[in-house]
Structures are given as C-alpha cells and as structure tokens.
C-alpha cells in the first residue's frame, strides 16, 4: 500500500516562531488532508488539499502532487497550536476510498 512519511517527528518552538511540517507519500493520490489532533484526542480538519496552495489564517498548506509531497506552514505559533499534526492520503482503487495516515509531527509551543 501507499507509504506516508512525516517530518520532523517532534518539533519544539518558542511562541511566535514559524514552522514547516512535511509530508511525503510514495504514490499518486486523489486526496490529501491535514489534521490537528488536540490534547483531548480530537482530529480537527485543517486542509483538504490534493494539489495547490490554501491558506486559513496563520496556517497554509501546499501540495505538489507531481513530486509527492505536501507542506504545512504555521506562522506566529501560539500555545494552542500544540498537538500532533497528521497528514493523510487517499489513493482511490476500484472505487474504494480510505485514508492512510502518516505517523505525525508532535508540535510543542513553549510560552
């Protein structure tokens, strides 16, 4: 099946810093989503971004489908940004649709 790798595995930053999280995937995909898992374990949808660039406030994401990677940018980090960020991809096969998740990047923002 498709492989999804995220880097770095852990990231510790001071409040106000900027960060870039990377997601590499091993095959062409039909769907790519970024999630933030908060301290209560909930998965919060950040972006649906199979290709191109999107922005939402301090967060933005870029997917370069031809080169099989996606980047999540967080600017002016706040302590509430702490948590685990997951990238998940879908490669549609004979109509079957499932997301394959990466192992995540754990982001810790220090006040």
């Amino acid at each position: 099946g498709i492989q999804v790798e995220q880097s770095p595995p852990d990231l510790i930053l001071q409040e106000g810093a900027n960060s870039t999280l990377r997601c590499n995937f091993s095959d062409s995909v039909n769907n790519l989503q970024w999630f933030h898992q908060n301290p209560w374990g909930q998965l919060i949808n950040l972006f649906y971004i199979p290709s191109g660039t999107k922005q939402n406030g301090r967060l933005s994401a870029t997917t370069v489908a031809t080169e099989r990677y996606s980047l999540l940018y967080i600017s002016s980090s706040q302590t509430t940004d702490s948590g685990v960020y997951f990238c998940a991809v879908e490669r549609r096969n004979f109509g079957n649709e499932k997301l394959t998740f990466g192992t995540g990047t754990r982001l810790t923002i220090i006040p």
Partner: protein
Amino acid sequence: EPEVTQTPSHQVTQMGQEVILRCVPISNHLYFYWYRQILGQKVEFLVSFYNNEISEKSEIFDDQFSVERPDGSNFTLKIRSTKLEDSAMYFCASSERGYEQYFGPGTRLTVT
C-alpha cells in the same frame, strides 16, 4: 456547520464483553468509515461502508468486528468479544464521494 457525532465519548468494558460504538454521520454524506488509534500511534483504517455494504476492510477488521447502518442516521461499530488490545480511540468519519472526510470526536474504548 454540520458535524459527525459519536457516542459514548468514553466506554470502559471488561474483556470478553460486547460493545457497540455509535456514530451519526453528516446527513447528506453517503460514505462512512471507522478508524482506530492505539495510544501513541497513528490512525489506522478499519472499514468503509457504502450503499449498505462494506466497501473495503483492513486486516484488523476480523470476524469480531461488524458494522451496521440500522436506520437512516446511525452508523455503528460492534466488537463482539473485546480483547485488551482493542483499547484505543475509535473515530467515525463520513464523506461525499471523492471529497474530504470529516471525523467525529472519537470514542475512547478501555478494555480491562
């Protein structure tokens, strides 16, 4: 904004007991999914469901698991005889075909 809901938020059960986890997908979505996340690990696909039947299931989804859409709104995951290793967070998700999957808040299952 429409959202996926799950009940209960936390379930504690004894080994060997049956549990049913419940989900209400977004109303106009036709594709439904269950995923699970063992503590500290990544989220894993269990099963997808469309048109009242399983579309795909992972190797984790063995005979002790089953899914059902008993009415027009609920989607359930049943574990017949729970094991210690079934302890995990279980997420339900729904989508329109080919679009973003929306996840519920999860049910934390603890098997003792």
